[in-house]
């Protein structure tokens, strides 16, 4: 084929590097005089792929400080230095006299520390779950409870509380298991309905709405028939960090670690899914399978978190958005940073929940919304324009 534009090419507004197609192993095909473009490219590319070190640093610092503060502050104040000493003392092979009494030691190790760690795990799980759901559904309003996890867990927990109150076995231990199973059952039904009816993400979303409404209706009915448990159910709905010491941490850790690693590992897929099903397919992604895997991961994270902490609202939707506003929308950054920032946020919120009101504990969901919403509003306002 003739190339009549050959003469015109010189006048085209492209740099001289236009010729060697950046194709397959064209080995060292760079034309003479390409040294300068090379340097320019290096700069441009390096700038575009920069890792947001500052955001990582700040998030990790907040988390570390939050954890320390959380174990120090409480009804019986443990000194900051003593706490650090006590924690170091707990490390194998380290002997430090922290100056803590044995009662204080047991407060630190059996009460404060597991609760702080649990808060971090729940925060990380909810924030990652929210980030993944937002990515899968390409919907900024998506949150961890989207596909009915909350409604299912709510029904499960309510049933457990009712039967526990009626038949007298300690209700609390049954509640997490029932909530977990209820949450997964709801998502399972939504997934079967959604994936079965069509391949699109929208049908899954609508199935989730239908299932959530149904489960919520059932829960309301059960509550209405057993009004003596309303307070207990209500407290569960508002969310609170568990009180079972390390056993909750042990329950939650495997879910957060395994699902978290998968979510971070599939962050590249999440980015490609933002192009929509057609383009993602054309790029070589099996959209249906990837979507299913991600939905399972995000639902497990949400159900596991809900089962030990109740319905803590706000974390799962706001934390990923805050990350986006500050460091950009690529899920390679949003997913892992959400985990750290979500953990820090919930640990700090729990400090508030335990200490803001003397003599009583605020529901942590109230604290996250009360302090998180204004913070996010400020962020949204100051970063306006960066969100297309």
């Amino acid at each position, binding site marked *: 084929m003739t190339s009549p534009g050959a003469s015109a090419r010189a006048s085209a*507004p*492209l740099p001289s590097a236009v010729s060697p197609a950046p194709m397959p*192993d064209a080995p060292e095909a760079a034309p003479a005089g390409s040294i300068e*473009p090379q340097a320019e490219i290096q700069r441009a*590319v390096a700038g575009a792929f920069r890792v947001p070190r500052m955001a990582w640093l700040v998030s990790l610092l907040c988390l570390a400080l939050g954890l320390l503060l959380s174990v120090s502050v409480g009804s019986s104040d443990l000194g900051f230095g003593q706490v650090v000493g006590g924690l170091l003392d707990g490390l194998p092979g380290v002997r430090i006299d922290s100056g803590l009494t044995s009662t204080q030691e047991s407060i630190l190790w059996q009460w404060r520390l597991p609760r702080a760690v649990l808060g971090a795990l729940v925060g990380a799980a909810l924030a990652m779950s929210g980030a993944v759901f937002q990515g899968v559904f390409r919907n900024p309003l998506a949150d961890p409870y989207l596909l009915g996890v909350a409604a299912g867990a709510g029904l499960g927990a309510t049933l457990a509380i009712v039967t526990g109150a009626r038949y007298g076995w300690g209700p609390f231990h049954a509640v997490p298991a029932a909530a977990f199973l209820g949450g997964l059952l709801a998502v399972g039904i939504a997934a079967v309905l959604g994936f079965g009816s069509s391949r699109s993400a929208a049908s899954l979303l609508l199935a989730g709405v239908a299932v959530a409404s149904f489960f919520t209706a059932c829960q309301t009915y059960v509550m209405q028939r057993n009004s003596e448990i309303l307070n207990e159910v209500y407290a569960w709905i508002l969310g609170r960090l568990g009180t079972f010491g390390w056993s909750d941490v042990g329950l939650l850790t495997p879910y957060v670690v395994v699902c978290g690693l998968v979510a971070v590992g599939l962050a*590249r897929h999440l980015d490609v899914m933002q192009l929509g*099903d057609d*383009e993602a397919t054309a790029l070589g992604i099996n959209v249906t399978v990837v979507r299913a895997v991600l939905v399972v991961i995000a639902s497990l994270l949400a159900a596991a978190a809900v089962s030990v902490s109740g319905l803590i609202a706000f974390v799962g939707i706001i934390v990923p958005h805050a990350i986006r506003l500050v460091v*950009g929308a690529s899920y390679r950054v949003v997913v892992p940073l959400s985990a750290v920032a979500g953990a820090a946020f919930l640990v700090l919120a729990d400090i508030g929940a335990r200490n803001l009101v003397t003599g009583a504990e605020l529901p942590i969901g109230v604290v996250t919304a009360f302090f998180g919403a204004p913070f996010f509003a400020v962020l949204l306002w100051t970063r306006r324009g960066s969100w297309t």
Partner: protein
Amino acid sequence: MTAPTRRPTSIAPAVGAVRRLELTDVSVRYRQVTVLDRVSLTTAAGEWLAVIGPNGAGKSTLLKAIAGVVDHSGTVDFRLDGEPSVGSGRGAPPRAARLVAYVPQNPVLPPGMTTAEYVLMGRTSHLRWFQFESGRDRDLVGRTLADLDLADMAARPVAELSGGESQRVALARAIVQQASILVLDEPTSALDLAHQMAVLELVDELRERYGLIVITSMHDLTIASRHADQVLLLDHGRPAVQGRPSDVLTAEILSGHYGVEVSVLPDPNGGVIVVPIGHRSRTADKHRTVADPHLQPVIHLHHIEPSEGDPPS
């Protein structure tokens, strides 16, 4: 100076490996409506196929079928060097994505993503689950951006680019994919003359250098005649005429299918120049009936009659 190759086999053989692309009786139906009706064609490595036709003729659907993003009947076969053929279709092995790079007419440009991050996604078909891009992939992105005059935009949000810039960015993503078939839906519709020329020249150069098969849908028939080795004219989803540009792009064929009078002049630089000269009169057209909405041009200028007293505009 290049980094050590981490995936030594994935690049060179992938390109130029497709000797022939064969479509046999490819049909696409959306529920009851047949949008593409038994299209068969063959292109060989190094060929440029232009798909033309009026709006709604099925051009985009055909390209989607080749890219494997739409369910179709019939077969799309990639004849590889000394290998059995590979079919495409939704759910086909991701191998097809290594063979075909597809750019839709209006690519989705996700908010908050930088140009470089966007183009890097072209490497998707070369990566396994849980695998991330290497420095080599990023180098390729950098070089491609420079080639397309986009290096300055590497760190800019892709959603904030102009129409022409985003069209070139989408092409960059397709090039980075290193497939041996480039499927481009209206690749130059948002470009000014200079960039139109530059982009098409670049595609042509890739085609020549690596023996790519290039398949583009085009509205600009003059440009189509200049670049294409083969032209397929679709009308109502059916392959109406197929052949060399000089055989397909004639005044008679074009006016019959587009419903306007055109004059086709020889272009001293190669190809032909297609100029519309007026709406084809209804009575002169035996093929068209009023009941057939597809043949109605979108704009009926002759229906607009100036009313008395209107100032001339």
